[in-house]
């Protein structure tokens, strides 16, 4: 009581300024605040988009995709005159290489001693010209098949650099041959039979079939040998019979009692959850297949989805809860939002295809719009009008969006928007009316009540709904397949206009492939990774709810 008495003299005129003053013109201030808020949101969205572009452009492309500068990349036809006697490393002689990937454990280094062309007959009866490169390696002369996707790393000075020599096919553990090496060709021997039939490792069990003549190459030179064509192997996935054909590579363990897993580690079947599943691109060889492009694609698509759906969804929820008049139009919108939450996701794929990927065909070369204004469109599946608004190279704008990350994010936004709106409305409705009254009673404007009390209190609930919606989106396959996401992407996107794949599509693709290694091991590994990401997102949602939920 005495404390009150000491302060009362200063408060004789409470309505007038006692300690401070109030600014005039509240409505102007209110409008200024609202405009500032809108600008802030726009700036944030713009900044985040720019950041996403910058990250995908500079970081992803720069760090992951750059080749070491010392090497020359040779693809396509190889003239013997210019590169014979050069020290080279041949990477993935039989595999399509997309982009400019350098990290591989498939390759061999040596000096080119010649080239060779062979005419082969395929099973269908066609003739096929195969280019071979004869390399003098530390394992002896090796014949490498060349096709136009073969990448040859060539050093300017003509010396084998240490990095080239470090390419595996480790001589101490394995001998690389074309054909079969006589002394190790016995029952019980661990071998690995390589491409072109797909790789498989195992212990020789039996020989069957017609006898064929095969060439072998080793340190001692080349020789001929007769073996039966069908070899049955005991592998980790059961017994498999391998048919020897022209071009088959066989690897023998140098130590006849060698460990099978040593060979499996080289290629063929592989333990599923090695780190390479998340660092490798898709490949037709299970040993090398991974889902890096799927993971990166999923992260970017989900990021874009979050970017679009948060302002749209929360804005819609605030409008519907706080501003919309009760009427037939609002009722119609409410019913529609509730129904849209239950629409099958594949329908959103069709919508995304029409609206975002194609813009209703407005930028087709034959469309009236293009012809009327003579817009310079590019043809093709992802063609359209590509222009640059500010002259900044990575700030391209593509109309329509095409089968790009941006179109994927926009489609996913449509898919989760009803869920985000419903969850946000629930969170806003859960704010007690007494809080609203208290804020209004203090002279807060409607926007101040919303932005300073209701939104902060509802925010944990909004975030929970948002994350749960996003974790649904991360597992969605159908809409993106309909929309035209690819199943085989062996490069990282350089911008949001690039083609993409996502994790579930990669898994779906693996499940369809014939090999056990794809169906059983890689698909399982992919599902585990997908589940881990999804569950950790849900865990974040639960953490947010428990940490920030207000107990009244």
């Amino acid at each position: 009581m005495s404390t009150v008495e000491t302060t009362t003299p200063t408060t004789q005129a409470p309505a007038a300024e006692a300690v401070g003053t109030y600014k005039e013109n509240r409505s102007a201030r209110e409008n200024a605040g609202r405009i500032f808020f809108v600008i802030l949101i726009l700036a944030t969205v713009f900044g985040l988009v720019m950041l996403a572009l910058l990250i995908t452009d500079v970081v992803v492309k720069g760090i992951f995709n750059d080749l070491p500068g010392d090497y020359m990349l040779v693809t396509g036809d190889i003239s013997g005159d210019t590169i014979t006697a050069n020290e080279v490393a041949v990477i993935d002689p039989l595999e399509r290489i997309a982009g400019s990937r350098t990290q591989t454990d498939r390759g061999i280094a040596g000096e080119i001693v010649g080239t060779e062309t062979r005419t082969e007959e395929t099973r269908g009866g066609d003739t096929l010209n195969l280019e071979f490169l004869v390399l003098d390696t530390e394992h002896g002369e090796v014949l490498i098949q060349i096709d136009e996707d073969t990448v040859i790393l060539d050093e300017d000075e003509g010396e084998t650099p240490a990095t080239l020599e470090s390419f595996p096919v480790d001589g101490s553990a394995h001998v690389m041959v074309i054909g079969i090496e006589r002394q190790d060709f016995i029952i019980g021997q661990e071998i690995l039979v390589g491409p072109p039939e797909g790789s498989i490792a195992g212990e020789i069990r039996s020989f069957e079939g017609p006898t064929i003549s095969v060439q072998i190459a080793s340190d001692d030179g080349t020789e001929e040998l007769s073996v039966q064509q069908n070899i049955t192997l005991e592998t980790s996935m059961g017994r498999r019979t391998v048919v020897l054909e022209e071009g088959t590579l066989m690897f023998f363990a140098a130590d006849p009692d060698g460990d099978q897993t040593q060979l499996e580690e080289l290629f063929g079947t592989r333990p599923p959850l090695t780190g390479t599943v998340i660092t490798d691109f898709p490949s037709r060889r299970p040993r090398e297949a991974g889902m890096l492009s799927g993971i990166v694609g999923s992260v970017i698509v989900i990021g874009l989805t979050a970017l679009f759906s948060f302002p749209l969804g929360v804005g819609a929820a605030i409008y519907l809860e706080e501003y919309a008049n009760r009427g037939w139009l609002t009722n119609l919108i409410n019913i529609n939002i509730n129904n849209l939450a239950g629409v099958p996701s594949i329908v959103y794929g069709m919508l995304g295809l029409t609206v975002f990927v194609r813009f209703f065909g407005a930028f087709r070369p034959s469309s009236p719009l293009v012809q009327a204004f003579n817009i310079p469109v590019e043809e093709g599946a992802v063609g359209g009008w590509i222009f640059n608004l500010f002259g900044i190279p990575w700030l391209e704008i593509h109309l329509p969006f095409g089968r790009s990350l941006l179109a994927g994010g926009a489609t996913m936004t449509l898919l989760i928007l009803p869920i985000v709106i419903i969850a946000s409305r629930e969170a806003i409705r859960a704010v007690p009316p007494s809080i609203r009254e208290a804020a209004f009673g203090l002279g807060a404007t409607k926007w101040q009540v919303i932005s300073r009390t209701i939104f902060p209190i509802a925010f944990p609930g909004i975030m929970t709904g948002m994350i749960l919606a996003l974790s649904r989106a991360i597992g969605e396959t159908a809409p993106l397949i309909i929309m035209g996401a690819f199943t085989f992407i062996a490069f990282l996107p350089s911008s949001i206009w690039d083609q993409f794949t996502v994790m579930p599509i990669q898994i779906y693709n693996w499940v369809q492939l014939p090999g056990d290694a794809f169906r059983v091991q890689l698909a399982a590994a992919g599902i585990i990774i997908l589940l881990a990401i999804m569950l950790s997102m849900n865990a974040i949602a639960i953490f947010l709810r428990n940490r920030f939920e207000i107990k009244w």
Partner: protein
Amino acid sequence: MTTNGSTDYVFETDGLSVYYDGKLAVDNINLQVKRNHITALIGPSGCGKSTVLRSFNRMNDLIPGASVEGKIIYDGRNIYDDSTDPVEVRRRIGMVFQKPNPFPKTIYENVAFGPRINGYQGNMDELVERCLRQAALWDEVKDKLKENGLALSGGQQQRLCIARALATQPDVLLMDEPASALDPIATLRIEELMHELKEDYTIVIVTHNMQQAARVSDYTTFMSIDRSNPDARIGHVVEFGPTEQIFTNPQKKETEDYVSGRFG
């Protein structure tokens, strides 16, 4: 009969009627609220006391379907005039609610909320301390200003809400059964506080508790529903006068029945 800020009356209502969704809730209220006095509104449940109170600072505007007829003259102006900003009305006429409703923020931020949104320029720490002292809460919370307002007891929360209402430096405090959710000791503290605040503020209080009305108020308004049409539940003022007169010498039978406990 217009007034200005220097007259004795803070509020004068002229034929105030409130409708909810077109249905009449209170009819033809004519009241005067005297400056620096406590005016109590008493009456049975559902007679429209809170409705009348909430129309003094246009809180009824927030209820969809509510509409008001008649005038409330405050500071020489009709607060229901089209040119009057309801936000400004609510800043100058503070309100304390039946259930303590602090924001889920710190004690400091609860008090600072009103000044912040109204663009207060001055020493916020001083203002917060002064308001908490006026609400007789300072000594209890001065060491935990950064703690959540919801962590306080019910009585403390209600005094925090009073401090919060004082922080916008209002003219009038409207109190809607401020002690009904509190125990007798907390109620006593709120009543003592009201006596102290009377020096600086005009207070209008709605209460169910007739002893409370008799203890704290200078003037009392007895409201009741229209007995000729009980199903419509239309509230009206039965009697208005100094508290002593209402409780000891009521002019109307209905008032006497109610204050002596023989009503309904």
